[in-house]
């Protein structure tokens, strides 16, 4: 029987590289290696996850008892706004980008992404955007406070101050970053697959990443336009959202949700992919209905563009539009149901093992299903009119995003981190993390269903004692402490595993896909030789199916690896200059705006020319 030890015998490839990689800090600043960029994304995501969690902890303390006045008014609004903005754009999305960067090229047997420098550009633009949004605390002493949805006209000059400028500026940079990354990864997954890897042999996680990259590339432009219009309104005094000039606030809602709904699928589909990778490994069987899982993911992506109106049932679109959006929304239940049944089918009557990764993957299914079911309730306009802007909705999307997306990502961390660090995480701490998190999460968010049904609206900073919401709020807040404790255990586990963790080896889980055939951590060039893919589970079949061994070539391969480059950072920096110029266009902080814009534009032209003429 063949084993992965066979691959160690392969000849090391012969390198061609224009300039050698730098070392130390300079290496991290100039790297175009997808693995390093993936680690940067993942690290940033974890950092912002802790910050976003801290913000949630603060405003849950404010809401623990009635009539409290710790964080009131705009302070509370700012915490809520930044909790959501941080969690969606700065925590979950970069963690997904991290997994996508690190594992997609490995899974499809490629040496890097299609455009390594563009990838670095995406990362630096994301980095600039994440700092810009939070910089409002530094420069204005306040957070943006218009809600993460930023509904106009609440975000216009009349009703909000300087922090909103930081909000649109940061989000615009994040939009640019995501669109570029989307195009880059679409090309990578379609074009850089190893020989023999037909689309149906692409691992489910890479498939879901393909779907979300399409969603990113096609759904970010509308919100980018919405943000540009907002920026023009605030900076130059155009009248897009000025209702007294005939402007209509619905425009923002349409543009935002045309992005916003595909965006929630961007958050959930990768976790579905991770679960679809983990379940087969620990049940020791192929994924039940492999193709159905892939096609349902693609279908969810398609339908995601046709359902934005269900966020606007209360906005008065009229009965025809309401009916249309209600039906498209209800259709989403079908592909989601297909996936759930396939996961259950994979586990049914199998000999499972239960490491922490598997526990998170299993608990993903019921928790996500609960969130999905309450989502289906919102597909019905009359019911939605009752639940809109209540804690019921808050409960719904936290079951989907925390019970779904975040649990999936935790599963991914326990499963994939050994590949990145070469060390296994501690299973005992992992199980403490899992159980405390699962209990804490349900204690926090389940009472919110009741609160919503009892009429508690979202985004209020306190409530009277006789409203009947006291007990549930106290329970919810106590759950946040459990979740915080669990997350700290996770971070402690992650950090200690770097030093004390057991050696993982190339293939700790006896897994199915190509990323486990190389060493942990993988070398810069990923694979010593380009694998030939013969089946849906290339590595499993190599190990256990005679006749499907991955051939090891005798000759060393000659490979060209991309060189480190400063240019991506130059271009992001110039784009950032334009944004800062628009931000200070009206002369705030004593910075002249328009010279910065011109300098940024010239900087982009100059650095793009340097980019295209630079040998890679």
């Amino acid at each position, binding site marked *: 029987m063949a084993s992965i030890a066979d691959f160690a015998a392969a000849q090391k490839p012969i390198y*061609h590289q*224009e300039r050698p990689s730098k070392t130390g800090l300079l290496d991290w600043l100039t790297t175009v290696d997808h693995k390093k960029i993936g680690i940067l994304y993942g690290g940033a995501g974890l950092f912002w996850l802790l910050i976003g969690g801290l913000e949630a902890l603060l405003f849950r303390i404010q809401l623990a008892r009635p009539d409290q006045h710790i964080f009131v008014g705009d302070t509370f609004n700012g915490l809520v706004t930044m909790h959501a903005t941080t969690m969606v754009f700065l925590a979950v999305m970069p963690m997904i980008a991290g997994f996508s960067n690190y594992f997609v090229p490995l899974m499809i047997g*490629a*040496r*890097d992404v*299609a*455009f*390594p*420098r563009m990838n670095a550009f995406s990362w630096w633009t994301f980095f600039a955007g994440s700092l810009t949004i939070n910089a409002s605390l530094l420069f204005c002493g306040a957070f943006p406070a218009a809600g993460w949805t930023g509904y106009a006209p609440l975000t216009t000059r009349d009703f909000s101050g300087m922090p909103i400028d930081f909000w649109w500026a940061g989000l615009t940079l994040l939009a640019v970053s995501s*669109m570029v990354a*989307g*195009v*880059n990864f*679409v*090309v990578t997954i*379609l*074009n*850089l*697959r*190893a*020989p023999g*890897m037909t689309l149906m042999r692409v691992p489910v996680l890479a498939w879901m990443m393909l779907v979300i990259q399409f969603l990113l*590339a*096609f*759904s*970010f*432009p*509308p919100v*980018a*336009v*919405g943000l*540009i219009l907002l920026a*023009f309104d605030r900076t*130059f*005094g*155009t*009248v*897009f959202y*000025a209702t*007294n*000039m*005939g*402007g*209509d606030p619905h*425009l923002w809602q*349409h*543009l935002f949700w*045309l992005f916003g709904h595909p965006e929630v699928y961007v958050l959930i589909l990768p976790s579905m992919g991770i679960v679809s990778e983990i379940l087969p490994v620990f049940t020791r069987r192929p994924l039940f209905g492999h193709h159905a899982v892939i096609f349902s993911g693609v279908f969810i992506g398609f339908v995601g563009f046709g359902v934005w109106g269900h966020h606007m049932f209360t906005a008065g679109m009229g009965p025809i539009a309401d009916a249309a959006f209600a039906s498209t929304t209800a259709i989403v239940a079908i592909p989601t149901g297909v996936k759930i049944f396939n996961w259950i089918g994979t586990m049914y009557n199998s000999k499972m093992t239960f490491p922490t990764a598997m526990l998170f993957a299993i608990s993903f299914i019921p928790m996500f299903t609960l969130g999905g079911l309450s989502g289906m309730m919102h597909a019905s306009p009359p019911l939605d009119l009752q639940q809109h802007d209540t804690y019921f909705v808050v409960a719904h999307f936290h079951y989907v995003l925390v019970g779904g997306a975040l649990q999936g990502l935790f599963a991914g961390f326990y499963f994939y981190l050994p590949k990145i660090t070469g060390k296994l995480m501690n299973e005992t701490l992992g199980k403490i993390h899992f159980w405390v998190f699962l209990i804490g999460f349900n204690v926090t968010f389940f009472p919110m269903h009741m609160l919503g049904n009892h009429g508690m609206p979202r985004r209020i900073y306190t409530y009277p004692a006789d409203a009947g919401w006291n007990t549930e709020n106290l329970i919810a807040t106590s759950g946040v402490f459990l979740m915080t404790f669990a997350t700290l255990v996770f971070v402690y586990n992650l950090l200690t595993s770097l030093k004390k963790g057991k050696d993982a080896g190339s293939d700790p889980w006896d897994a199915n896909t190509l990323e486990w055939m190389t060493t942990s951590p993988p070398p810069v060039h990923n694979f010593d030789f*380009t694998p030939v893919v013969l089946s849906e589970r290339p590595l499993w079949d190599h190990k256990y199916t005679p006749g499907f061994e991955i051939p090891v070539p005798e000759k060393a391969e*000659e*490979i*060209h*690896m*991309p060189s480190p480059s400063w240019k991506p950072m130059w271009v992001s920096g110039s784009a950032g200059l334009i944004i800062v110029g628009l931000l200070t266009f009206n002369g705030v902080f004593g910075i002249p705006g328009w010279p910065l814009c011109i300098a940024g534009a010239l900087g982009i*032209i100059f650095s793009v020319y340097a*980019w*295209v*003429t*630079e040998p*890679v």
Partner: protein
Amino acid sequence: MSAHAENLTHDDAHGHESHGALSENNFLGLPNIKLAMWAFLGSECMFFGSLIGTYFFYHGNSLGGPLPKDVFSIGITSISTFLLLMSSLTMALAVDAMKQQKPLTARTFILITAALGACFVGFQVVEFHEFYTEKHLVFAGANASLFGSTFYTMTGFHGTHVTVGVIWLLIMSVLITKKKLVPGKEAVNVEVMGLYWHFVDIVWIVIFTFVYLLEFLK
């Protein structure tokens, strides 16, 4: 094999990662950069869709300021439309010449295309100036109207795309002159540039018909 690798390095000296060894194991055998351009143009469809959609969402909602039929005149716009259409033709001829291994002809057509594009942008500046000073169509500030804001933003972003295209064309002609962009495998770089240019042209076809011409029929 090593000669091949050197070729690849040489190709990459021109900065297009499409031919790097990264794509050697390329399953579909397509040039990365062309695939990326089509995906990017898909994204641009949504971008211009949003801008044109905004214009129509607000069409007829303007409270104050002149209305479309007060400002549009068929003269200057039809000239610039014609110029942009012809630039599409010269761009197609440039791509064809590059595929025929005639870089100098290609460069001539590229420069003509850039000149036509620059004329288009020039006419747009003239048009904006006329609308602002004579027709009092204001983009922003105290006398701004919804029509002014949406119109200038939509056509301005199109003009920005043309400007970016002109800069791109000029860079490309410099690279051809310096022999850093040679026919053969690299013809695809000119082709991809052409795709972008034609896309900017079709956006204008949509804007010209739906924003300008249909207004005259009302």
